[in-house]
């Protein structure tokens, strides 16, 4: 069953057509990467899916219902973490429960639990400024999943981190998504890193230059955990590069 339906999305800023026509679908248990050249509107597209921006044409359907505003089931992780610097880490995470009608104690309890799970133990009362990039993004992730979302949208979540931290965080994210008590069943990640897309996803939506449309939707059926040096991996990466540059 299609969880998410992106249909004929079009978007412009003033006279500039950023997105011409983008269509794709996503199902449960999929990890979708959206990849494309800079300026092709992939971040805009993600925000349209999140309900933050209204498309000029087309629509996004979640479970058959149109998305025109933020939805409790759909969470967002930002490239630059977007933590409020004047709130403590735990208060930042609790922000994720703003749309929920539960008590402060319950929010505090859930947040504390999550901190432990994500290796952030001890940093609850600290301010984001005291954390490294990787830790900040963990807090950002915690905020996104504390609301038990079904869909997780991530906007270039690793590109503000150095390679080592990014690598570590990637595998942690995969492990987290695998764990049974995380109800996330669909991830849509925007990235410009082809290797990352092939490492993590089983579906890659390849966009053209602006005004963008879908060039190709590539399924990747390699077994997890993926070996970056395997022939299959390299083949997929090469293919995607080819499509991007032709």
């Amino acid at each position: 069953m299609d969880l998410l339906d992106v249909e004929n999305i079009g978007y412009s800023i003033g006279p500039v057509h950023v997105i011409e026509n983008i269509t794709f679908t996503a199902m449960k248990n999929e990890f979708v990467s959206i990849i494309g050249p800079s300026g092709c509107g992939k971040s805009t597209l993600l925000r349209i899916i999140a309900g933050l921006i209204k498309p000029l044409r087309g629509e996004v359907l979640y479970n058959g219902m149109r998305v025109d505003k933020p939805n409790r089931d759909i969470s967002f992780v930002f490239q630059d973490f977007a933590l409020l610097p004047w709130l403590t880490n735990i208060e930042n995470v609790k922000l994720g429960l703003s749309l929920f009608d539960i008590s402060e104690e319950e929010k505090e309890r859930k947040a504390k639990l999550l901190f432990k799970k994500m290796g952030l133990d001890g940093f609850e009362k600290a301010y984001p400024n005291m954390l490294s990039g990787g830790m900040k993004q963990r807090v950002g992730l915690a905020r996104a999943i504390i609301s038990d979302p079904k869909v997780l949208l991530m906007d270039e979540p690793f590109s503000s981190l150095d390679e080592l931290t990014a690598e570590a965080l990637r595998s942690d994210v995969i492990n987290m998504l695998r764990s049974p008590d995380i109800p996330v069943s669909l991830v849509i990640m925007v990235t410009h890193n082809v290797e990352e897309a092939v490492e993590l996803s089983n579906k890659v939506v390849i966009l053209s230059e602006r005004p963008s449309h879908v060039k190709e939707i590539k399924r990747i059926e390699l077994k997890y955990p993926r070996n970056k040096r395997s022939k299959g991996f390299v083949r997929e990466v090469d293919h995607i590069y080819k499509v991007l540059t032709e």
Partner: protein
Amino acid sequence: MFNYVLQLLIDTSFSWVRMFIALALSILLGLGIGIWAATSRRAEKVIIPIVDILQTLPILAFFPFVIYIIVAAIPGYIGINAAVIFLIITSMLWNIIFGVYESIKELPHEFIELTAMYGMGLKEKLSKIYIPASMPKVMGQSTLSWAIGLFYLVTSEIFSTSSKTYMVKHGIGVALTQLALSGNFREYIVGILIFIVFVILTRLLFFAPLEKYFNKHNMSNIQETRAIHFVHLIKSRLKLKIPKINIPINFALGKKRDTYSLSNEVSIKPKRRGYANLIYAALAILFVAAIVSNKTLFSYELSILVALLASFARVWFAFVIILLISVPLSVYLIFFSKRLSAYVLLFQIIASIPATIMLPLIVSLFIKMPFHSEAVAFSVYLLSGIWYVIFSMLSQKAYIPQSIYEVKKLFGIKGLQAWKKIYLYAIIPGLITGAVTGIAAEWNASIVAEYFTSSGIENGAVLTSVSIGIGKLLDLSLDNGNMVLMLLALLNFTIMIIIINRLIWKRLFNRIEDIYK
């Protein structure tokens, strides 16, 4: 014997209460207006240009007019106090509005997206995003705002003309001027000392803790971005291969490059310029027609123009001297001294003493000189403007990354080359901002610098009076109750300031914006 000390303490306390009331109201209003302008496109289009103009107007020059109006509506001491507080608010409000506005506009787009994602209502948005984001900047310029406010306070407390004295009952401005004019110089000095003590205590017990509280999360990343751009600037000017400076990628840097931002995608030029210019031209024609057709108005206009010219010369002459003093001083303090913060503290305290309080002293200093009124005017103009320029330039230090000093040492850059390629660039943004605010401060002081008299104090003696000047003209027009002259003068004054803004400062800012962005 110590009766007068007690009296001085009471007077200063009264003044301080006025200041705090004005500060509280300014912050409340500033937050409200600033947040509104930052979050509503339509409000922004109206509010920002208006505040922009108001910020550079010499509000103090309007004081004769303001006092006339308010006291007419609310007579007696309440009216006077209201006028004083109103005036102090106008000295603080614009800065606060801009501080709030800029803080919110500088917020990463994602924060606004957060409010949508998590369904925040107005109260939540205010308490979780807009107010915490604004307070650091608001508190950051509180020391300067306080000093500016004190200038307005002191000047407005004892604004008098030869026929009528508008005076508050208790106030340090009143007390000090009375003491000085009646020759009680010992008490006068004690009064100044008490004033300084109050300033220091306010800083220690009020502003410092508040500033700390609102900055406890310490947003140091923003400084790093400017530092990075500054390095690029220096790199290109020096045309040297500087080893890659490894600044850890962080929040702010990410924002500038890859982060999603709608306005980064495409820049759209607004096309409404044509109409504004037509309206200005029409108004100008109407104005000229009105002047020429009426003999009295015509003669008024002529004297106003001459007065403006004279004051203009004084203001800019004082400014040149200010530059000659402050540029070398600032360069020394930024690049060669290790005790910058100590000096800044000292300057802040000295700067809190408004030139107006020193007026009697200054007059007695120059009384034997020929052209002593010009000397007095020059001194007051200089003292009014210099702190803005100095503080503005010194604050540039925060934007100079450590690596610049290292580059200078490594490559042995000194002397004239250092001036041309490092020092001037380092301070130019501060110089320009300081120039705008400093010259505005000078214009503000014109009603005190050029003409000062005090009827209720001595025997209507005129303390100082230049031959021609806009400050003197405004004072005299209040004296004679000549509202037409006063309003016409204010109109000319305002137009002149706006024209100078557009022609000089805006252009300068645009030119350096590309380099310093």
